[in-house]
């Protein structure tokens, strides 16, 4: 029993310690500095592309080639420290998570003070309170009735948007006034939306999907996958250029099918994505395609479609495009690779007007490779191939991010929160009026503003207006 108590006591101390640890603004500053440092590394040091980072083998090759090119023999060390993928490194994730906890605890910690502001603290203070500190003022020898002083002070404060609470005892009048109390909640808007950003970002990566290269050749249909039941048909593709060869515009006319029924027709352009049930299609890239027909031994057509030549590779300076036909339904063939004539140089191996047909078996080994001329059928292996025509393909980025709306809302809250904290400071004023004899007395004022805001200028304005209203003889600050 005693032991248990001791244990729970210890647990409580640890909890208290943790709470104190995370409620410090100093910790926030240190964490932010660490994040700044890591971010600078991420901005200045070469970072691994995400497609490569996912594949350990490709990654280690990247480190010894591309990275080593830039940083020399440091590449191994930097890689061990995860500095080539800083923004997904444990350091970055830990620092950010700690910062999020820090923000959360700091915000919660301020709740009692904010709640007090909203409800309003005590009205009556000791007399010494009104004359200590540097934002105090005194109006002496006020020649007015007590009720008049109360009414006029109220009017001045009200005109400047203060909420006023008054208490009286048999001698004095006490007033506590404040304004912008609800804007103090702005700190929750900005800080919680910051947490919301991070959560939405993580949730988006977890629940959504992102297909960076979704190419569809003209005329053909391709399934989107990811359990969407969607497929897209590219009806036509148009590209336009400036006179200097820079791309001016490119657009795709598409039809979207859901469970094989057409549901949407659209033209997709850069900056003008097509959106259907939260799935977004962005125009991303484009290139050549070839129309191929394949017949089997019996002369029956087993394939006829446009093939997007969307993979580009370079061998000995010759840049060629490659496209893949999936013939997995056949007995001994898996895929057929089509390779174009070089696009940058005169190609001595695959002349223009030809494609190379590279047939692979089930274990992806090459069975045979032959040239195929445009318009001339040729039997390769057991199949007859025909290169019917040149066409184009269009490449899209397809993404579904369920957290997108949250991020938009968080963005708005974020800015509202920042502005309300910076532009609507919580100001407080306390007034004590001490009547001396009938029709005269002195008025003591004390103002308070958040740190960083000058309370004296606000005090000056109030004192001036009160002076005007009460027309006193002598003012001492």
């Amino acid at each position, binding site marked *: 029993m005693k032991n248990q108590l001791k244990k729970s006591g210890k647990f409580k101390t640890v909890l208290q310690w943790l709470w104190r640890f995370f409620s410090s603004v100093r910790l926030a500053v240190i964490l932010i500095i660490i994040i700044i440092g890591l971010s600078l590394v991420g*901005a200045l040091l070469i970072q691994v592309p995400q497609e490569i980072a996912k594949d350990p083998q490709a990654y280690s090759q990247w480190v010894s080639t591309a990275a080593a090119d830039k940083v020399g023999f440091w590449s191994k060390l930097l890689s061990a420290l995860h500095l080539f993928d800083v923004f997904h490194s444990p350091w970055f994730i830990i620092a950010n998570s700690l910062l999020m906890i820090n923000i959360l605890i700091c915000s919660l910690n301020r709740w009692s003070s904010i709640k007090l502001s909203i409800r309003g603290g005590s009205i009556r203070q000791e007399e010494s309170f009104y004359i200590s500190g540097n934002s105090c003022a005194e109006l002496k020898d006020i020649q007015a009735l007590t009720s008049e002083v109360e009414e006029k002070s109220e009017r001045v404060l009200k005109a400047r948007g203060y909420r006023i609470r008054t208490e009286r005892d048999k001698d004095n009048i006490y007033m506590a006034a404040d304004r912008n109390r609800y804007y103090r909640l702005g700190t929750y808007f900005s800080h919680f939306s910051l947490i919301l950003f991070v959560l939405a970002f993580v949730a988006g990566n977890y629940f959504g999907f992102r297909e960076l290269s979704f190419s569809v050749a003209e005329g053909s249909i391709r399934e989107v996958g990811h359990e969407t039941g969607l497929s897209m048909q590219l009806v036509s593709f148009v590209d336009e250029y400036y006179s200097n060869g*820079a791309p001016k*515009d490119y657009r795709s006319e598409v039809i979207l099918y859901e469970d094989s029924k057409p549901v949407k027709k659209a033209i997709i352009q850069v900056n003008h994505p097509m959106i259907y049930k939260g799935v977004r299609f962005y125009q991303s890239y484009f290139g050549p395609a070839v129309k191929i027909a394949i017949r089997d031994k019996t002369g029956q057509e087993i394939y006829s479609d446009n093939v997007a030549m969307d993979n580009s590779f370079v061998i000995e300076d010759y840049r060629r495009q490659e496209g893949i036909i999936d013939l997995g339904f056949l007995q001994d063939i898996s895929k057929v690779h089509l390779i174009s004539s070089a696009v940058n140089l005169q190609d001595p191996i695959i002349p223009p007007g030809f494609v190379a047909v590279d047939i692979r078996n089930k274990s992806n080994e090459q069975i045979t490779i032959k040239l195929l001329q445009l318009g001339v059928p040729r039997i390769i292996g057991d199949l007859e191939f025909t290169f019917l025509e040149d066409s184009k393909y269009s490449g899209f980025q397809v993404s579904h991010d369920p957290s997108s709306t949250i991020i938009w809302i968080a963005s708005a809250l974020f*800015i509202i929160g920042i*502005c309300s904290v910076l532009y609507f400071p919580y100001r407080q004023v306390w007034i004590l009026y001490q009547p001396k004899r009938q029709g005269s007395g002195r008025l003591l004022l004390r103002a308070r503003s958040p740190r960083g805001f000058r309370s004296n200028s606000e005090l000056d304005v109030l004192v001036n207006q009160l002076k005007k209203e009460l027309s006193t003889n002598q003012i001492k600050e």
Partner: protein
Amino acid sequence: MANLESIFLMASLAGVVVSILFAVFSSVSSRRSSARFSTAEKSGSQTASELPKSGLLITTKVLIALSLLFVTLTLVFRVIQTGHGPFSNMYEFALSYVWGIIVMVVIFEWRYKAAAVRNVGLIVTLLLLIFATVKNARPQPLVPALQQSTLLSIHVASAVLAYGIFTISFGAAVLLLIQNRRSMVWLPDKEILDVISYRSVVIGFPLLTLTIVLGAVWADIAWGRFWSWDPKETSSLVTWLIYAVYIHARLMRGWKGIKAAIVLVAGFVAILLTFFGNYIFTGLHAYR
């Protein structure tokens, strides 16, 4: 239009150079009169800002206003000529940044009358204008991704205004550091410099936030992702974090004076890194 643009570019350059000359003259003369003033009145804390207006000071103000007019016209003719906002290369962006600084110089001069802070702003302006003149590039057609003009224009406009105003806080911070080493009677006093630096951050920080948020929203529309850790994005985030540290340190822990000024100088270095970063790193913002 191209002709008018380069004429006004030269006029802007000349305007800023002459403004600086006059600003220095008026500072020197006010320094002398303030020395006289303080010996006569025995009031060492008298600041230059409270001195009677001299003809030199008025001339300086007129010259600065003229420079602003010239830079604005340069930008206007550029926009008419290209048909899009001035943000497609470093020349256009540097000009916009110059415009942002001069606008803020005029506003803060009017509001706080701190000539010395304005002079730092003018020197940064001159350096940027020289950079812009050297970089002066023929307009290139916009690639499709940059054709979404409205959002991009607001994104860039708030960026240059934020940069402009942070240049003012940098100016105030640098002068504060100088004042701290050796108190100089002709510089504004530390209290005023501190207020200027804080007020400028208070205006600049929401603008920078807006810049980043609009950039993210635009990236979502154009590329389908809010954030891709592109180096320019990252370094603007770093800038934002530095000013966030400043605001928290000041509001929560009451940082003032040197410590706060050092953070502001770091913030300005981050802005320069973001601005000139295009030359250091590649990525989505890799226009030159």
